[in-house]
């Protein structure tokens, strides 16, 4: 009897809240695995074994085999130990392969006692011993070779400048079972995530010097992705990357300048300058590879990690075949749809699921269709404030209202939804906002978004079934990130808003083909600002008993800046990616900033030109944000100072 009563109560509370559109946590649940006391995971590698066990590699140098990992009582068995900060793990033909800092190692249990007895060095590579010289991988190529990537070191005096002190640094290379080493691609800075998709290699990087923002790159043999450190080795090691340092620095200013005191000056962003972008280098040197998708820094992560494809055939939800990518700093997972235009990959990226307990470093799919997530923040700080974790992301079988795909069209984009959309909302141009922007290619840490342009929506066309929307735009720009915000779109039933209303499409090429005839377009524009709340009628529809109806608006004091009022601004300018009101995240809490007693004007200056040295307790420097309009920056500043 008791159980029934509980069930009833639960239903009741659901109804009361139903007027709000469901959020990501209503579809994908995070389950924390029970881990025996005393095991520090700091996961660097995660893989499934053919028998359904999962295996983990940890920073402490252990390989754990986790038996029955989806059960209530997974069993942890130590398979190997003593390894050097492992950052990747695969299982192949009865052995594990993992990248330690300085070698690819094959671990085999030859006598069958459940423990590795053979620690075979497949290939050892040189490193200088700098802390930042991590090695990631491997991923297995179709020919059985192993892809591994190498982080750059930083300079001694120029501690901000990525350096390749050994030939593997800032590159992706391939190791064969017989120990052969083959350079593959160059120009990486911090290549923490590798992924194999249909036998093709992809990698992720994050913002830093020469990296305006994070993103996912497709790595064919011989490509160069943007950071010049590795080029010093390109000629000497018979690299397939045919780009020299001389050629690179003839096109780009390295800004290696000493000040009057004799020290090198750290390059900072120059707001008013004639800048260059990565794709412009590609126009001259075709081996330059621009990202498949940019993952705008601060919005879709700040330190991107593992890339995996959903091969669950629907067991993980409606996104079968799409790509998921983790993020350490923001402790979340993003979703990417890729398509090929003119033979090159490009695509769309969305937020997918946040709220993990620590930085998302590694993911793998379980045969049951759930995703195991291995976590660590290892000294960089993360939104999830634990230092490490092992969690499982499980789909509850309900379909979220999401953009399923977003494809480039000759005159705009075609968006496919997971469920039919409300025709009235979709055929109103006010429901969609569009803009495009890109990043600088320069030796400064990160880049503000530049050349931002609002795009006029000329018209839309919704398919008969209500699931496909053509959006026709003026002013598409190749290589630019096109941001479409579908805040006003509602689902046909329930009138939900999208779980993630914003898509970022990296338009490397505009496809050829027929443009849609103007006569077929709907061009009605209600002129209303983008609706942010569902219509009143909807509320009453889903909550007929009237419960939860907002009371009449009380009078609002005009001047008071509160978190609620400033939140849209903080979101728009990506402040919330790293800051919260009262909790240390990647950056200090706004309350802590308020304690510094800066004037509003000073805060605005610091938004434009941050001084990370003022916050020595924080690992990740803030990128300059000159793109924030002065008016918005002042509002944010007065909000921060209101917390004093």
């Amino acid at each position: 009897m008791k159980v029934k009563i509980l069930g009833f109560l639960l239903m009741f509370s659901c109804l009361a809240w139903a007027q709000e559109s469901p959020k990501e946590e209503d579809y994908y649940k995070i389950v924390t695995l029970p881990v025996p006391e005393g095991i520090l995971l700091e996961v660097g590698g995660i893989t499934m074994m053919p028998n359904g066990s999962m295996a983990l590699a940890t920073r402490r140098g252990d390989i754990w085999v986790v038996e029955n990992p989806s059960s209530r009582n997974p069993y942890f068995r130590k398979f190997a130990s003593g390894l050097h900060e492992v950052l990747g793990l695969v299982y192949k033909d009865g052995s594990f392969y993992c990248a330690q800092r300085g070698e690819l190692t094959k671990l085999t249990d030859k006598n069958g006692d459940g423990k590795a007895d053979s620690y075979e060095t497949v290939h050892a590579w040189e490193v200088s011993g700098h802390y930042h010289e991590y090695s990631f991988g491997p991923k297995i190529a179709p020919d059985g070779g192993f892809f591994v990537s190498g982080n750059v070191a930083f300079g001694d005096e120029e501690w901000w400048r990525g350096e390749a002190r050994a030939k593997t640094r800032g590159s992706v290379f391939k190791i064969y079972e017989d120990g052969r080493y083959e350079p593959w691609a160059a120009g990486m800075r911090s290549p923490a995530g590798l992924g194999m998709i249909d036998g093709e290699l992809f990698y992720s990087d994050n913002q830093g010097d020469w990296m305006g923002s994070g993103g996912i790159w497709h790595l064919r043999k011989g490509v160069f992705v943007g950071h010049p450190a590795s080029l010093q080795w390109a000629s000497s090691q018979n690299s397939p990357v045919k780009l020299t340092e001389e050629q690179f620095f003839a096109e780009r200013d390295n800004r290696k300048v000493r000040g009057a005191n004799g020290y090198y000056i750290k390059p900072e962003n120059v707001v008013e300058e004639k800048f260059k972008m990565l794709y412009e280098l590609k126009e001259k040197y075709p081996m330059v590879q621009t990202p498949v998708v940019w993952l705008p820094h601060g919005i879709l992560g700040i330190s991107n990690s593992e890339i995996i494809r959903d091969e669950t055939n629907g067991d993980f939800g409606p996104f079968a075949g799409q790509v998921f990518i983790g993020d350490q700093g923001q402790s979340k997972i993003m979703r990417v749809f890729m398509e090929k235009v003119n033979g090159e990959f490009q695509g769309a990226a969305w937020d997918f699921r946040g709220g993990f307990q620590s930085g998302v470093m590694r993911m793998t799919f379980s045969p049951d269709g759930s995703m195991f997530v291995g976590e660590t923040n290892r000294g960089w700080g993360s939104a999830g404030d634990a230092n490490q974790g092992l969690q499982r992301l499980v789909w509850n079988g309900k379909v979220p209202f999401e953009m399923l795909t977003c494809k480039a069209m000759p005159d705009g984009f075609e968006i496919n939804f997971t469920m039919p959309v409300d025709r009235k909302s979709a055929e109103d141009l006010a429901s969609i906002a569009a803009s495009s922007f890109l990043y600088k290619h320069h030796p400064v840490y990160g880049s503000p978004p530049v050349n931002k342009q609002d795009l006029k929506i000329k018209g839309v066309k919704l398919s008969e079934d209500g699931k496909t929307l053509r959006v026709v735009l003026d002013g598409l720009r190749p290589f630019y990130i096109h941001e479409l915000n579908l805040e006003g779109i509602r689902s046909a039933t329930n009138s939900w808003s999208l779980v993630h209303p914003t898509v970022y499409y990296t338009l490397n090429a505009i496809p050829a083909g027929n443009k849609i005839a103007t006569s077929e377009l709907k061009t009605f524009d209600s002129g209303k600002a983008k609706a942010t709340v569902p219509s009143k009628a909807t509320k009453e529809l889903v909550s007929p008993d009237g419960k939860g109806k907002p009371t009449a608006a009380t009078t609002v004091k005009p001047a008071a800046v509160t978190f609620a009022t400033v939140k849209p601004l903080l979101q728009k300018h990506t402040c919330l990616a790293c800051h919260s009101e009262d909790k240390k995240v990647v950056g200090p809490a706004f309350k802590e900033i308020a304690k510094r007693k800066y004037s509003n004007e000073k805060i605005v200056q610091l938004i434009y030109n941050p001084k990370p040295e003022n916050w020595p307790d924080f690992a990740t420097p803030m990128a300059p944000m000159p793109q924030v309009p002065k008016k918005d920056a002042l509002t944010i500043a007065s909000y921060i100072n209101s917390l004093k």
Partner: protein
Amino acid sequence: MHDVDLSKIKIDEQGKTEDLTWEVTKKQNDYVFVIKGIYTAPVAGKYTFYTQLGGNSTLKIDNKEILGNNWTVASQQRQASIDLPAGEHTFEIFNNKRDGWIKPALGFWSEGPGFRSTSHHVVGSLIASKPSDPILVNANTNTTLRSFIDYKKYSGDKNFRIVHAISVGSPEGMHYTYDLDKGAIVQIWKGQFLDATPMWEDRGDGSSRPLGSTTILNHDLTLAGDANAAWPKDTSKTGYKPLGYTMDENDLPTFKYRILGTEVQDKIRTVEGKQFNREISLSKSGNIVARIAEGSKIEQVAEGLFAVDGKSYFIRISSPATIRNGNELVASPVDNKIIYSIIF
């Protein structure tokens, strides 16, 4: 890392400081300071000095560098001991900090005969950095750990970072570090096993340190192809390739590598908590010769027993071994094996 040529650096400011603090600089990062002062030892005896500085630092007492130029994060303490006569001594603290994410800090303590560790810095100088909780690796069972290992043959040498090192610890309290790039035992020690704080705290720098007083061997190749030529400095033209190691039923490794066309197995085991026995097996002998010890001086003290560096440690070998140049002990394989013991 981060070594700086002080002769080329311009001095921004110099003067007297009332307080011992890093705040003699105006910057949070990108600074070099040298603080010189007088330390008065009340009585003669052994004094231990502790420093806590972010970035590269040294400590000199009476112009003798007792803490060499090493890089640490700001939460790490370093220490060194020295015998001092009573009276005034000079001290000199050098700090070069280039990593923006490391906190500025200056901590300086001493302890000596009859007094416990006493701080000499002002409180504010360390406020940002509590000393880290040490992450120690005990060898309660046979334990191996890969890490970078900082190596110096002699105290005045420049630090050399061994990047493919493995340390092997035993519950008997006898431990060693092996350089997988050279097939060489680089250091041996008794006591506790490793301090992995530098590797595992915060971002870490990938290195660990022996916990105990080490006996330093060397990190040159153990095997070479010519008994008469100067001992090779590196592995070039030797075809050296590390092959990893196998673990026996007691979790003890046997290292494997290829050199000069020969496959090598290198097995090092403790014997009764007293010595290491080493057995190097070759797949074929060729002209291979092993240099089983090297130092400033090697003397034969008994038949098959050699003292290295004034009895810093001993080598016992039953097959013939030859002292070369007074400071190298070489031996050729017998039945494709070289077997000897290291006693320390």
